[in-house]
């Protein structure tokens, strides 16, 4: 399938710095027509910077970009598109009020006589693109309400309508169900058969092995190695990505769980999750595992009270929590470190100390008035404890790196001395070094008697950190595994609904 002509796209030793931050020091990749190429690396390895360079969003400070053998320079996203490169971002952004067909052809709608948009032709062409992909979406319907999987397909259709010869898919399967993932793989095969080069970025190694022919691994902003998929094993890959062995990443001390802190019984929310029951004790880490879309975050939100649930109960320390009242959950000693740090975990435009203090304001007030000195003291105490690297306390948190931002969120919640810490994707978007710190921290917390409910999509993290693993699939609990029984195989099977062998 790899052809002898020049590769579709070649990036050689691209460099991109943002001030003192080295996002990319050696970004190199070669994409060939007809090939699905996986780009692997931990968060912070430089993958998204590389993708943005390919998409014309960033211009590299150094390095060479070649399209079909010719050196080029993208002046912006339009230039990248014109060169035949299409990026399908993780969060597709369509125009919800416009039809699917119009989304595909915006700005290039086919015209009839008198420069009038020819809707029939537009829809017919959209149809034929969907047909060629083997999928089935009504081009006349509004884009609003499409599932993430379908939105992605519309983006792919858009790319094809632009005669994209390089398609970059950034974490495409993160929000897809099994069926949808399979459909996507079939589409990728079709794209390859049409001669496109596909760059597939994912954390899910099993998927990489299922659909890609070649692998490139990055670490700490640098190219590490590239090889045909047949020549590598999962261990090879992990070792290249991480630079060290798996075990040292997850320091896990032995703890004896004590009394029950959280009891969830029969929790249900129509269409989201059904009959969720489990407990979490003091001194243990319970992980909620499963594929994205399984409903784990929704369960956490329901427990904390952000969303109301339909049936069931949540008890903390023996007392039932009222439905849908975060304040009550907080008063009962529950803390939630949310999935989306930037939108939910922090107020980006507020200072570091204000963010740390945000959940503790009543404690820091006397006669209703906030004591700024106490606020500052709280913030510096926790910044120190968590070793947050910052310039000044009054800088906004947007100036911090992802890892340090996560520490601020943690500090905010730990300052309340909760009994139960719910943490959703604890190390997403964080560099490797800080990841280990966070894990050590969690370990220390449970050793000290806290109960931790952890949601994670990173299987190694789940397997490494959890005392018990609860697997969700499509809103239901499919397995509750003790640490010893929780193998990758067992968890994945429960997550994907496959019957265990024998």
């Amino acid at each position, binding site marked *: 399938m790899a052809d002898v002509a020049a590769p579709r796209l070649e990036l050689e030793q691209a460099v991109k710095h943002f001030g003192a*931050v080295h996002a990319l020091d050696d970004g190199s990749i070669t994409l060939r027509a007809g090939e699905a190429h996986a780009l692997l690396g931990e968060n912070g390895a430089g993958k998204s910077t590389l993708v943005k360079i390919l998409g014309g969003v960033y211009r590299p400070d150094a390095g060479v970009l070649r399209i079909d053998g010719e050196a080029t320079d993208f002046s912006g996203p339009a230039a990248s598109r014109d060169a035949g490169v299409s990026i399908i971002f993780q969060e597709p952004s369509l125009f919800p009020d416009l039809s699917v067909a119009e989304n595909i052809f915006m700005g290039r709608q086919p015209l009839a006589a008198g420069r009038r948009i020819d809707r029939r032709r537009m829809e017919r062409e959209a149809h034929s693109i969907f047909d060629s992909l083997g999928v089935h979406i009504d081009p006349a319907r509004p884009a609003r309400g499409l599932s993430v999987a379908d939105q992605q397909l519309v983006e792919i259709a858009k790319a094809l309508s632009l005669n994209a010869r390089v398609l970059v898919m950034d974490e495409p399967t993160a929000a897809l169900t099994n069926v949808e993932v399979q459909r996507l793989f079939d589409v990728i095969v079709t794209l390859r058969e049409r001669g496109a080069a596909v760059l597939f970025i994912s954390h899910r190694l099993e998927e990489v092995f299922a659909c890609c022919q070649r692998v490139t691994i990055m670490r700490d902003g640098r190219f590490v190695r590239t090889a045909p998929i047949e020549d590598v094993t999962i261990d090879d890959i992990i070792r290249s990505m991480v630079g060290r062995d798996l075990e040292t990443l997850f320091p896990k001390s032995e703890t004896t769980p004590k009394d029950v802190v959280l009891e969830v019984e029969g929790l249900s929310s129509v269409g989201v999750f059904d009959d969720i029951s489990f407990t979490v004790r003091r001194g243990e880490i319970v992980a909620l595992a499963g594929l994205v879309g399984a409903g784990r975050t929704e369960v956490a939100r329901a427990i904390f009270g952000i969303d109301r649930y339909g049936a069931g109960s949540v008890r903390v320390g023996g007392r039932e929590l009222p439905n849908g009242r*975060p304040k009550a959950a907080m008063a009962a000693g529950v803390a939630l470190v949310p999935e989306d740090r930037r939108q939910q975990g922090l107020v*980006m*435009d507020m200072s570091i100390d204000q963010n740390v203090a945000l959940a503790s304001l009543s404690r820091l007030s006397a006669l*209703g008035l906030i004591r700024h000195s106490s606020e500052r003291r709280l913030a510096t105490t926790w910044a120190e404890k968590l070793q947050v690297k910052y310039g000044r306390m009054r*800088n*906004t948190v947007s100036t911090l790196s*992802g890892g340090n931002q996560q520490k601020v969120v943690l500090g905010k919640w730990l300052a309340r001395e909760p009994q139960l810490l719910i943490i959703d994707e604890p190390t997403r978007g964080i560099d490797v070094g800080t990841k280990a710190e966070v894990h050590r921290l969690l370990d220390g917390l449970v050793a000290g008697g806290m109960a931790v409910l952890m949601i994670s999509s990173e299987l190694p993290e789940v397997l490494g950190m959890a005392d018990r693993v609860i697997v969700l699939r499509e809103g239901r609990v499919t397995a509750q595994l003790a640490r010893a029984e929780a193998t990758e195989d067992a968890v994945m099977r429960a997550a994907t609904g496959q019957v265990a062998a024998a």
Partner: protein
Amino acid sequence: MTSDVVARPAPARSSGNGSSGNGVAHRLRSVLRWEAGLVVVLAAVLIYGSGESSTFLTGTTLFNLGYNVGYIAIMAMPMTFIVMTGEIDLSVASMLGLSGSMVGYLWHHGWGIWPAMLVAIVVGVVGGALNGFLVVRVGLPSIAVTIGSLTLYRGIAEILLGSQTIPAPNDRPFPTWFDNLGALGVAGSQLTWSTLFFLVFAVIFGVILHLTSLGRSLYAIGLQPEAAQFTGIRVARIKFWLYVASGVFCAFAGILLTAQNASVTYNAGTGLELNVVAMVLFGGVSIFGGRGTIPGVVLSIAIFATLQIALTDQNVDPNVQNIITGLLLLISVIVPNGGEALRRLRSRLRRPPRRR
């Protein structure tokens, strides 16, 4: 106020590893810079006014300030909070008119002044609650809702009074103490009751915004409503009660205006919502929410008020005053954005250096 297209200020660029510190040393300075700028402008206006007229810096001016602007300033206080949470309330002037009209209507029908005023305040509560309900519970955009309620409340005022002026020829005149509330200063001084009330409210609102956790919550709601919710802040509840408060304060202002004029017609205060918004925005409160201070708004009100008097003293056309109000409003939003625009222009003109 959801951002209008094209008008969202450019977000601080942050790649995965965080951007170089463009953070709040800058923002803190820009906040103080605005208030400091307002102080300068106020001083300039005072100098201009006293330069042109020897009687400018006297008690009479203070009285006139309060008379002209006191009741409007009172409405600006809850408006500040509402805009800080990213919403808006354009029905303020109509509620002003409606409450005054309610007082007039009841008075006309023989009610006592105190019950009439009480009912007017209740009307403020109900009107504010309606706004709050539609914005918060039903989830409608506040600009659309308050344009609707603006029309609705004015309409109800019209239904109540029609084309009458209360007290009508056959009515009892308002009680003397009531008229004096508007016509005379506090304890014979030059400080109008409306100014006194305004100052008290300003202190209360200022303390709340800058020193309490409720105030901090308002900033959080304006800057990042989702994160605020995740911290246990009851966003919906706070917004709802802010609208109720706005209704109450506007009703109160409506009573004061009635006292001041010693009469009321249904169209009292028509169009004043724009003045209120202008005062708040010129005070440095961002239309997007999450930024601004009470001292800034107070300064802004002072500027508007003294400017009006200074210009009137000079017999400057009230129309020119309108133009100036509009320009001040425009300035208050252009200046913060102008810096950004200039920066963008400069970077577009400066080509990036050729790569090797």
